[in-house]
């Protein structure tokens, strides 16, 4: 499972953000979704979808080495080790690392693929073709 964005299909609904927050934390809060939906209005009138590009900048920025790379290529925050400093949030070039206030931890995309299942527009897809819209 590897996320890819098809921004020209995005309609700005942010269902992906809620799906992510609910899947990973059980919290109904779009600000915890590990993606970014960037509107470009009034001109040119399109949305931009930013997903985790697995650049590792979050891991490099973490002062306590709470972020590790998993075999599949995605990253994971060790919530026990995370001190909530937010360095990874600032380091992410795509602005898709989140800070979850209720848990005082950072969160990076785990490539769970749930956003792919519930994006109504297929604006987020699995490059590997394994996960599809529900």
């Amino acid at each position, binding site marked *: 499972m590897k996320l890819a964005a098809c921004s*020209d299909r995005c*309609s*700005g*609904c*942010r*269902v992906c953000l*809620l*799906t992510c927050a*609910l899947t990973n934390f*059980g*919290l*109904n*809060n*779009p*600000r*915890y979704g590990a993606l970014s939906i*960037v*509107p470009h*209005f*009034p*001109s*040119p*009138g*399109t*949305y931009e979808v930013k997903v985790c590009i697995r650049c590792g900048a979050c891991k490099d920025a973490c002062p306590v080495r709470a972020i590790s790379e998993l075999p599949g290529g995605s990253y994971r925050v060790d919530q026990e080790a995370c001190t909530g400093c937010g360095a990874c949030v600032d380091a992410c070039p795509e602005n898709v690392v989140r800070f979850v*206030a*209720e848990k005082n931890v950072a969160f990076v995309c785990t490539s769970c693929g749930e956003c792919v*299942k*519930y994006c*109504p*527009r297929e604006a987020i897809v699995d490059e590997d073709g394994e996960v599809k*819209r*529900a």
Partner: protein
Amino acid sequence: MKRGGYMGKILEIDLSMKTSRTTPTGEDLMRDFIGGRGFVAKLLWDLVPRGAAPFSEENVVVIAPGPLTGVFLPGSGKVHMGTKSPASGGYGDSNMGGHFSPEIKCAGYDAILVRGKGKEPTLVVIEDDKVAFQDAGDVWGRGAITAESMLKKRLGEDFQIATIGPAGENLVKFACVSHDFGRQAGRTGVGAVWGWKNLKAIAVRGTKTIPVAEPEKAFQKGKEMYAACFHKPGFQTWTPYGTAEVVDWVNKVGAFPTRNFSETYFEGYRGINGQALKDRIKVTDKGCFGCPTPCGKYSRARTALGEVLVEGPEYETIALLGGNVGLDKIEEVAYANAVADELGLDTISGGNVAAFAIECFQKGLLTEKDVGRKLAWGDLGSVVFLLEKMARREGIGDLLAEGVRTASRKIRGGSEKFAIQVKGVEWSGYEARWAPAMMISYMTCDVGAHHNRSWAITYDVAKGRDTLEGKADKAIELQHIRPVFDALGLCRLQWVEIGFELENYAELFPMVTGMDYRWEDLIRASERTWNLTRAFSAREIAGFGRSYDYPPERFMEEPVPDGPAKGKLIRRAQADALLDDYYAKRGWTPGGLPGKAKLEELGLGYVAGELEKDGYSLKP
């Protein structure tokens, strides 16, 4: 059972004192009125002093999401906004999509009340618990779209912003509140009340989590709801064209507003339909929070007057700023749409008033000297000229800005007969001389001539377009069902357009809120709200009732001249028969007031006392 959906607080903003405070969201408010439109109705009844002028410090604007707004389910992005309407003098409300509503929830509020009047143009900035009043001097006077753009740059993209344009600032009776570069709370002049209160914009940023009573169950149900929508047969066909897709059909059945509703079939409709939109101008499918079926069509259109970017045109705009003014090119309708959006003018009323002015000119009731130029059907220049003049109250625009009811009373010469309005609110996109269920829907819609509460034309087609039987019942049924969505804080298009079943919402409601309500309970609250909004208008407008429920004389005196509905009209006796049936079925008096027994049945006994004070008889 744990509670959820609600944030537990109502934010009250006092523009005069530049202060704010919160109060707990009342148990009885949630229990009896649910949220959204229900909150609007009850809070206006309670908080607007009897007889307060629409343009006054005492008038209140209520902005209310619903308990399901911002929650994980299709269409959870709507906000309901209401006030004492400057257009009708009675209950006014309007609904808006985009992302404003979920942001209000995430900032921690079930409703925002706006009171008082700013000493100077004001921007209210809400960030979770913090409320700040900023000087809006540098955005005052700017278009609604431009102002939002400026404020987004200043405050940040993660603020959701609602603005008014020059029309609201100039107290145009059909000024709207705008948001998200193309969404509006369009009807009944809510934008004018903002303008009078010197409220240019509200910016909201919320970071809180919305509580859910049974999180795992609700999430699972939400996932099933989205998946079900994805697999509805209509899911694929609907989105590419949006609401414009119905243009052909409305013409086919002879219900399309054409040249100020003088006709009901527009010969140029193929140039302004969904296909024309998709082929010639569409850029993006743009939707609201949580929506799987984005109806918004963001477009780029080029005309002789210039190029615009606009969200639209939506069906209503195609009807009122298209066929109704004789424009037969989608690019020109889009251009007029963009002009109206930047000015902060409701496109429905704007198109209706423009058409009225053009007909007056054609009949010599307005001269070139009165207007400042010639006016013609099918002329984009005429339409744009009128919209600009209205928004700025310049020249003839000052009178037109009052709406067609008032303008026609001043202009006279028989123009009152073709002022196409009910209760001072201009008629929207479905002509109904051959659709009695749609006709009674428009006559009795609580805010004036709007189609949102009851869309019943297919009922007419299915049961017979000439019969009156069952038509009032259908209107009543829809007037209860459709506003349930306005109370829940949701969009109804998934149900309305792709047949997504109502039971789904009933199932989810207890999972989110922890309230053991069934669909019937939501309908009951909707009926309660319906009676309360009627009562509010009765309290605020002396002699309110039946006489405010009639359609314009054009519909009762002029048979449709041509097209599929040729020869059709609604005779006054038929309008009376429909009203008699409607009032009886609702438990209302023959004079059109809620009956005392009905009010008591709905727990609105206190309302009966207030209306009897005004001398209304509430005996059915």
